[in-house]
Every structure is written in C-alpha cells, then in structure tokens.
C-alpha cells in the first residue's frame, strides 16, 4: 500500500475514573472529551492511546458509558482508536474493559502476536486509511512487561517496511527525569529500532526526543494531572498531534490551577493562616483548582492550628472549583521527634519492601522478589468492582494470584 499523509493524535494516561473526589474525577473525563473533540476538529486519521485509558481494568459504569459514547462518535466518523493496555487497565486475569470495547468494535488493541521459536513476534495492525503499521506492547505493574521486551523478536519488526508506529507503556531509562530516578525502567535498546514514531505512556512527563536508532520517542504526559504534585508541576495535561512529520503539542487546560506555597519555618500557625489568606484575599477563583502547600517547621503550635476551615470557606466564597492541601513536608518544633515522611505511598512501600527482602524462602532473587511482592500487593489491594459479586471478586483475585505465582 502506498502511504500518503498520516495525521494522528497520541494520547496516553487518561486515567479515567482516577481521582477519588467526584469533581476531579469528572475533570479526567472532561479532558478526555476535549482531547477527542480537538482530534476530530483537526481531522486526524486515527487516535493512539498508549495505555491507562482507565484507572482500573474494570471501571465504573458511568465512566464506561462516557468513554463508549465518545468512542462511538469516533467510530461513526471513521476515526479508529488504536490502544494498548497500561499498568492500570491491564488485568492478569484478562478481565479488562478494554476487551469489551474491542469486542464491540470501538477500539483496537494492537498488542497482537505469536510465539515463534520461544520469541514473541508481534503483528502489525494496519490502518486502512493511511496504511500506517501499528504495534506495541502493554504495560504491567512492577515492570513485568520488561520480560516481554527481552523475548521480543525485534528483527522481525525492524525489517518491516512502511510507516511504522510502536506503542509502549514503559518508563525508558534514557528519558527518565531526575525526579523519577527511582522509578523502575527499561533501556530503549529493548524496543525495535527504525520506527517512524514511538508512542509512549506511563511516565507522566512531556518529552519528545530523538535517540540513535529511535526517532520521535514521545511521552505526551497525562491528559489531566493525577496527583497533587503533578497538578503543581504540570497544571494541565495534553497530547500530541503528528501531522506528516510535524509533531505538535496540544495543551489541555480544563480548569485553572492556582498554587499557594507557604514556608512555615519560624512561624506560628496563625501567621501561616494569615499568609495564605493574604495571598487569596484580592483574587477570584472561578473554575480554579487551588493547591495549598505548606512546608517547613512551625516555631510553635500544632499543625492542626492552621485554620484551613477559614481558608477553605474563603476560597469557596470566591467560587474555587476545588481546593487541595499538602502538608506532608510540614512539622512543628513541638513534635520534632516525629519525622515527616515526604515520600509518596509508592516510595514508602518500596522502602519497606526493600528492608524486608530475603525473608521468605521463595527461591527468587531480590529483584524478582520485589516485583512479585509489589504485584501481589497490587492484586490484593484491588477493590471489588461495581456490580461484581463477592464470589466473582474472590475468584478474580484468586485467579490473578495464581497467574502471578504460576501455580
């Protein structure tokens, strides 16, 4: 097939259903809608979603309905969606809503292949309109997908001619930013070389880079930030549109973000309260997410004496859409013996796991043991899904554990 111009959107990490709070949860969905609408206006040939469309393998019905509606709209307009499962919406038991969407003809999971001579040989999905050849690998928790890459028949993929896209949901060692240096990653050399576009996901960073043998390695970042830190850092989300070799970033600002940063060193709670109020007093916060970060060590008093209620009331009066506060790096001299852990939950878990490695007689090396423990924790912390019966839930968890442990 002779290839003409190719124009596509590259989206990743939508995490639909991600935030716990309904107001923020809605923004995830709104950002997704907005990205699809922009893509349609831009008349893209197809859309790529590089993992974590949903925040879980079995999302709630409401969120599912939203996505189905939008996918249906794309299908009606003949804009195919090619996707890969990510670490959040992949399920070891195979029970993922992505399968349902694919069965309904609303999207195509491009992670298809065969095992030939003990190697994983991926197949290309060919976009009918443009002839673009798309393939890729899913993302799994604890970087379990790394073993897929190690057994990947790269040569087979590399010798295929035409316009090729490789989708991946994996942190690449070479592109990891300093702030994510502890994140597990894989070297780019595990990916097949010579593709025209590498559509990445998983790492919530915005990066577009050429590396020797690998051009257009792109991480679009999330459609909407997923943590307090990401909101501070990114403020909004976005995605990329590839148009015949030109790659342009489309920023999505669904809500405004306003950050208040207060250093509490040598201050008392009342002063911190006044300082925050001073910063918000003469401003309006329509449709704005307000982030309040207080760090440092209070000279005296308790952290709970900072009058957040008063601050929240004032911000709500000023029509703030949502208010979040972070005091993880705040302490007080009165309780100096308490060390405040500034790390994320994942980092704390990692640290604890590492401290206790080697205590079980598993026969695994430390790396493998760490991965298995993390995978078990993920499976065991999975909630019962909406509409899922208790016995179904138990069977699912049991099945996932059995698969993981290869029982």
């Amino acid at each position, binding site marked *: 097939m002779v290839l003409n111009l190719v124009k596509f959107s590259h989206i990743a990490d939508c995490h639909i259903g991600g935030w716990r709070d309904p107001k923020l949860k809605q923004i995830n969905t709104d950002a997704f809608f907005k990205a699809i609408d922009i893509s349609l206006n831009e008349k893209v040939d197809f859309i790529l979603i590089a993992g974590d469309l949903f925040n879980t393998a079995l999302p709630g019905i409401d969120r599912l309905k939203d996505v189905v509606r939008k996918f249906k709209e794309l299908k009606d307009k003949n804009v195919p969606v090619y996707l890969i499962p990510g670490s959040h919406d992949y399920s070891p038991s195979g029970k993922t809503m992505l399968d349902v969407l694919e069965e309904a003809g609303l999207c195509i999971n491009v992670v298809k292949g065969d095992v030939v001579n003990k190697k994983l040989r991926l197949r290309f999905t060919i976009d009918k309109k443009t002839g673009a050849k798309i393939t890729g690998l899913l993302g799994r928790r604890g970087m379990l997908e790394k073993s897929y890459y190690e057994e990947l028949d790269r040569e087979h993929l590399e010798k295929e001619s035409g316009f090729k896209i490789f989708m991946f949901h994996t942190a690449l*060692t070479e592109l990891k930013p300093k702030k994510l240096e502890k994140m597990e990653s894989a070297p780019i050399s595990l990916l097949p070389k010579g593709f025209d576009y590498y559509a990445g996901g998983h790492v919530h960073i915005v990066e577009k880079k050429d590396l020797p043998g690998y051009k257009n390695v792109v991480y679009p970042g999330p459609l909407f930030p997923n943590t307090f830190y990401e909101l501070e850092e990114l403020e909004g989300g976005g995605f990329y549109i590839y148009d015949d070799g030109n790659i342009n970033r489309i920023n999505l600002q669904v809500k405004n973000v306003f950050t208040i940063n207060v250093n509490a060193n040598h201050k008392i709670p009342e002063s911190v309260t006044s300082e925050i109020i001073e910063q918000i007093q003469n401003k309006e916060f329509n449709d704005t997410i307000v982030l309040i970060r207080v760090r440092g060590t209070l000279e005296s008093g308790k952290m709970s004496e900072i009058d957040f209620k008063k601050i929240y009331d004032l911000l709500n009066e000023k029509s703030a859409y949502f208010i979040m506060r972070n005091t993880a790096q705040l302490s007080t001299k009165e309780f100096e013996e308490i060390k405040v852990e500034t790390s994320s939950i994942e980092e704390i878990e990692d640290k604890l796991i590492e401290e206790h490695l080697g205590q079980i007689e598993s026969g695994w090396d430390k790396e493998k043991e760490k991965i298995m423990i993390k995978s078990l924790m993920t499976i065991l912390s999975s909630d019962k899904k909406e509409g899922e019966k208790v016995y179904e839930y138990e069977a699912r968890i049991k099945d996932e554990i059995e698969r993981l442990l290869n029982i």
Partner: protein
Amino acid sequence: MSKGIIISGSFGEIQVRQKHGQEIELGELLIAENKTSKILLQVYDLIYGSQLSSSNLELVSGMKLEENSDLVFMDEKLRNYNLALLKNLITITPKTAHSSKSLPDFFSSVREVKKDDLTFITKPSNPLYVGKLRSGSKVLDVDIFLPGKKVFSHHILIAATTGRGKSNLASVMLWDILDNDYAGILVLDPHDEYYGRNKLGLKYHPKSVIYYSPEPPAGARSLKINLAHIKPNHFNGVVPWSDAQKEALTAVYKRYKNRWIEAVIMDEEIPGFMEGTLAVLKRRLLSLLDLDYYDNKIFCKGVFDTQAGQSTINDISDDLEKGKVVVIDTSSFAGNVEILIGSLIATEVFNRYKKYKNKGLLKEKPVISLLLEEAPRVLGKEVLEKGPNIFSTIAREGRKFKIGLTAITQLPSLIPRQILANMNTKIILGTEMQPERQAIIESASQDLSSDSRAIAALDKGEAIITSNFTRFAIPIKIPLFEEYVKDKVKEKQNFLDFSGVKFG
C-alpha cells in the same frame, strides 16, 4: 618423592641440591619436613653446580667442542647437578600456619607440595576466586580465593605486559563477583571487551551485568548523561585548565549552577573575565562534550545531552550500591571523555558513601570498586602533579568509605609510590620490563626482592598475588575465561508468560 636436599644457605636463601632425574622449576613450591612442622619453600633461582673446578670444566668442554671426543663424566649424577635457591614462605603445623621464623633441618630432603599440605588455605568470607595454586608451571587442585570485601576496598593493582592476561583475569573476577552482592563494580571498558557484545562475556552470566553503551545492543542502556550533572570539579584530571580558566569555571558555576555549561556556550553574562578566557572555555567544552552551537541552540551529538540522561549517574550509583556490576563501553570515546564519565560516577558514589559513613549506614552497604584500565592516565605522576582528582582521592581515602580502585596497568612505575603502596593487593602477571617489576616489588605487601626473575618468567595466565590479606605471596594460574565459564553459562530461561498479548 624427594626432589633434593638442603645443603647450605641462610634464612630466605636456602640452597638445595636437586636430585638427578627430578626437575625443579622456578617458582616451584617445595616442602621441607621437620619433626613437628612442615616448611613451605619456593624456588626463586636455579643455578648449576659441579664437583669439578671451573678450569677443568672449561677444559673438558673444549675437548668436546674442538676435538669431537667422546668424553663422558665419571659418576656424572654425583659430579654435576642443579642447585635451587629457595625462600621460606610459611611454616605449617598440624593446627595452624604462620610466618616462618626458623630454618628447615640441615640436610633434610625437600619434596613437591601436595594438596594435603595446604589445608591451611581456606575459603575466606566473601570469597573472590582468582584461580588455582601454581607450583612452578604445575597447577595444583587448590582453589585460591581472596577476601573480596577487603581486597576491593583496599585497592587492587593488576600489572602485566600486554598479552599476559590482565583482561582475562578481570573477566574471571567480574564473573565471580556477579554471583555475589557484597561488591558493586564499575568497569570503564575502553576496549569494549568485558560485556561480550560479539563473544563470550559477562552478558552470559545468569545474573545479568548492567551495560551502558553509546550504541547499546538490545537490553543494554544507552549512555546519555545530562549536562546538568557536570560540575567544574569533575574536570580535575580530565582537562588541564589554566588558573584563569579555573576561576572562570568556578564563577560561572556559582552564578548559573547546573546551567553553567549552557551559560558558557550561549555566551551568557559572566562579568570579570576576559573574552578570550571565556572563548577558550566555550571551545573546549564544545569539543570535549561533543556539542554544537548555532542559531542560539545547543545540539548534542554524543553522550552528553541537554535533555536525556537525567537519571543516568544516579541509576549507575544505585546499581553499584546494590552490589551490581556496571560496565560502561567507552571504546568510542577519547580518553579524557572516558575519564570525565568515570569522574562523574566516582564523585557521586564517593559523596554518597561519605554521607552513609556520617549517618552510620556504611556498614550495610556493599564495597564499591572502580575498575580502571590504563590506570596511570588518572593516577600517573604527571597527571597528579597538576592536581588531585577523584581517583587519587579514592586511592588515598577510599578504603575508609568502602570504595576502592582496581587499577590495571602495564606501567606501574608511572604511579606514585605512595599510591602504589596504598594498593594492598597486587596481582602480578608476566612483566618483562625491569623498572616496572622493580616498582611493584618495592611496594609489595610481602618481600618479593628475590622474585624479579620469577616475575619476568611468568607465562600467560600465571600470576603472583601479594596482598596484606594473604599470608604469603601466592603463585596462581588464572583460568582462561572461556574455559572457566564454559560450564557456568546458562541459557536464560525463556519467560513465556505473555499475558495480555492477543495470540492467533
């Protein structure tokens, strides 16, 4: 069976008459048995002996040569013989082994050493395999291990003429260390020979080595280092800056912090320095870091990058801290770029371990060793005259922080004596040049003053280990890497769980 009889000499210079029909080799280990102990002796020289005077010998030889006569010696076995000069290595009692302080009995016979004599050679904790015990050219079935943790933190010198097996030894040691996690080793590999890109190498070890290369094969990591990680002090020992340039570097770093290289290249304001000085800095940085600058943009052509490689130095340091072996292929770089990369990592690791010591956390960390080929490039007298660098700092202070050097060189005489003396384990392979042998002998942990000839005569793969952590200078035969790993290479088990991939 007796190989000879002790006939004369003094402590350290014992003379043995060799039994006719027996062969005694240079470097051979012999046992002299006393009533309550055995003394392990080593041959360090061989000479001829004869009952005939030298004038008679000259006459007899002349008759044989000039008159073609059929002269034979009467009682030849008795009249002509070999003499071996031996030195005491260690005294072995049934319960222990200790340094020799007495002579073996006069006129006692010496025999070849047997495995049973050497039961005092045991496997230390954190053992590092280096080869088998050697007696002359004979290899004994006695494995030699060094206490890995100690020898790595107290620096190792591997010295030999080209082609005598330095890299082979390093490969064997690295293979062995991969089985353990008591030491993290950083290998700067200027010949790209350890990983085994196209041959048998460390990549075949069941526990994978971590490999960085500018052109990585599948599974290896691309070597990219972010410019923000480089500080002016990383150039110590890499680039000889003038005083004015050093001051300018300090000033620009102070002003622009981790953007300082970009600031120099993009001609940003740096008050108080001559344009010429800044222009030289810019030119040298562009060249060294393989960068281009035009249209107000910096283009990165090589390893150093404005965007990528933000976590590389930390990733490598983390892996070393986990006791892994990290090999960096520096074969495509100029020497000073290789040293700059080494300097960046060494500085990070050194600073981390210093902090761990302050916090009392060092005990639980593995020892880290930096394996440097052609070590005089960073530890040579000439280099160090221009000022210290991180490697010389590690050579001096590293052992306090569990960081050591494994320095490989064919020219140890270029390394200052003080640093050589700090290298508490020396693995000496065949070294033909006398000044090089002398430098090693003078800084050895044991008295090798009589071993110069034995060192020169060491064949490929033969070595002598002198170390603060061995009781005597141990002669060894290092296995050929390919032979050594032949049975240990395991085909990686295919991980055939491809859950999530749609088949058919």
